[in-house]
């Protein structure tokens, strides 16, 4: 498996084609719009947060396979997690994606998100794999906001 196979592995292609939790959440308590003007990627995240715990999440938008799959897989790991647990998870995820290709990785730390480890071989694509997460953080912090990737 070369770095391209690892970037576009089956799980990612599957989530790109059949994104989970895709659509709007009518009972949302928090939402945010994320935008990467450089590539035109656009995402909306809807969250239902109760007592600091994410009870439900949905997203919609357009983007490349990496950005869509990362949003889809993200929505599958958020439910029942506290806001603090989510923030810690994003920190670990972000740290690994921006680490050097040879740095050791503990994939157990990431669980399902470990399919994105291959992204660190492609520094220009890190933004694709983190747009949904940055937008999620905005939603959690400000309840209703617009995030623009720089």
């Amino acid at each position, binding site marked *: 498996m070369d770095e391209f196979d690892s970037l576009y592995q089956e799980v990612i292609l599957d989530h790109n084609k059949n994104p989970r939790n895709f659509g709007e959440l009518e009972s949302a308590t928090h939402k945010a719009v994320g935008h990467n003007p450089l*590539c*035109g990627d656009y995402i909306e995240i809807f969250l239902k947060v109760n007592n600091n715990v994410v009870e439900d999440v949905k997203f919609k938008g357009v983007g490349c396979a990496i950005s869509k799959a990362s949003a889809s897989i993200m929505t599958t790991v958020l439910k029942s997690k506290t806001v603090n647990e989510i923030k810690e998870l994003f920190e670990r995820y972000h740290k690994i994606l921006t680490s050097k290709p040879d740095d050791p990785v503990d994939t157990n730390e990431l669980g399902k998100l470990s399919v994105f480890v291959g992204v660190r071989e492609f520094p220009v694509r890190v933004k694709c794999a983190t747009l949904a997460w940055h937008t999620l953080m905005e939603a959690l912090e400000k309840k209703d906001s617009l995030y623009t990737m720089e």
Partner: protein
Amino acid sequence: METKTESLKFDIKKKKDFDVQSIRKDFPILERLVRDKPLIYFDNAATTQKPRQVIDTIYNYYLYLNSNIHRGVHYLSQAATTEFECSRNIVKSFINAKFDEEIIFTRGATEAINLVAFSYGETYLSEGDEVLISHMEHHSNIVPWQIVCSKTGAKLKVIPIDDNGELILDEFEKLLTPKTKIVSIVHISNSLGTINPIEHIIERAHNVGAVVLIDGSQSIQHLPIDVQSLNCDFFVFSGHKIYGPTGIGVLYGKKDLLESMPPYQGGGDMILSVSFEKTIYNILPHKFEAGTPHIEGAIGLASAIRYVQNIGLDVIFDYETQLLQYATERIQEISEVRIIGTAKNKASLISFIIDNVHPHDVGTLLDRDGIAIRTGHHCTEPVMRRFGVPATSRASFAFYNTFEEIDVFVSSLKKIINKFK
């Protein structure tokens, strides 16, 4: 498919003056491998590769000639000055300007447009005036005018484009009024490939008394340019798009217009004399070339122009048109692909989108096969919005590309589409 390739190759072989394989030998980078595959460079609209002749010129400049130009009394300075000014003369002849001093060296087309926008625009625009651009401009021919309009109170007007990516000329006629003071138009669109009818536009704009700037960033490398017969007031281009170095560009302006414009930047070389009470500006072209210029850039650009002239732009355009036709036909075989930009007159670039595959994924996976294309909005966000797409993939061809490379590109595209099925 083989037969189609063969028949087109046969056409090319009939042209004895064009032998793509021997031309490829002039471009050392084309010999390299990318990801263990032979490089297929289809990103020529972003920047072109450099022939050995240009690389040697720059190398030799630093080996034997490096010196600051103008006012030096020593041998090297005079020799470098002569080379630099010769380069200006080569540019002048290349675009058939009337005078050497109508050629101003800039950092690129972007700086040349900014120079005109700020020097000419700020001087001559006032409230109620209008600047006319088109919907297919590169950001570099939008933003400088927005800035100048907001400073002067002039209004920016935009000529719309149709679904093929052609200017709607009837709308252009309606937008053109005595209020129109500047028309600034791209000759060839970098994201659609459309060749605009600039002769017509220049003539109509002159009828209402407007001056016309032509952005030749994508035409200088494909078409013969004659600024006198075009009768444009300004013409700009970048050296690196015509097989020369980066960081050098050209502003052509009619002499009387350039003379009537204030300096764009202050500094050395653009003055005749300086005192704290009064500074007298230098004559053209030096008035617009403050500071030590990009000497080896200008000399390298002249070398690139000589290289292109040697092949002949008409021969280049012929061959590139055949590449375009062949690539268009081959891409149209794939039902999932939609070409964005289907103007009747097109230069050798193809913007396209693929159902269910984002351009960035297309670009990354083509790269796996050593194929370099560009993906994104190509600094033409209004064009992307006009066609309702966030981004496109763009393959742009130069005369060193081959029909075989297009075949490899098309089979790579098919492979990508299958992967996403």
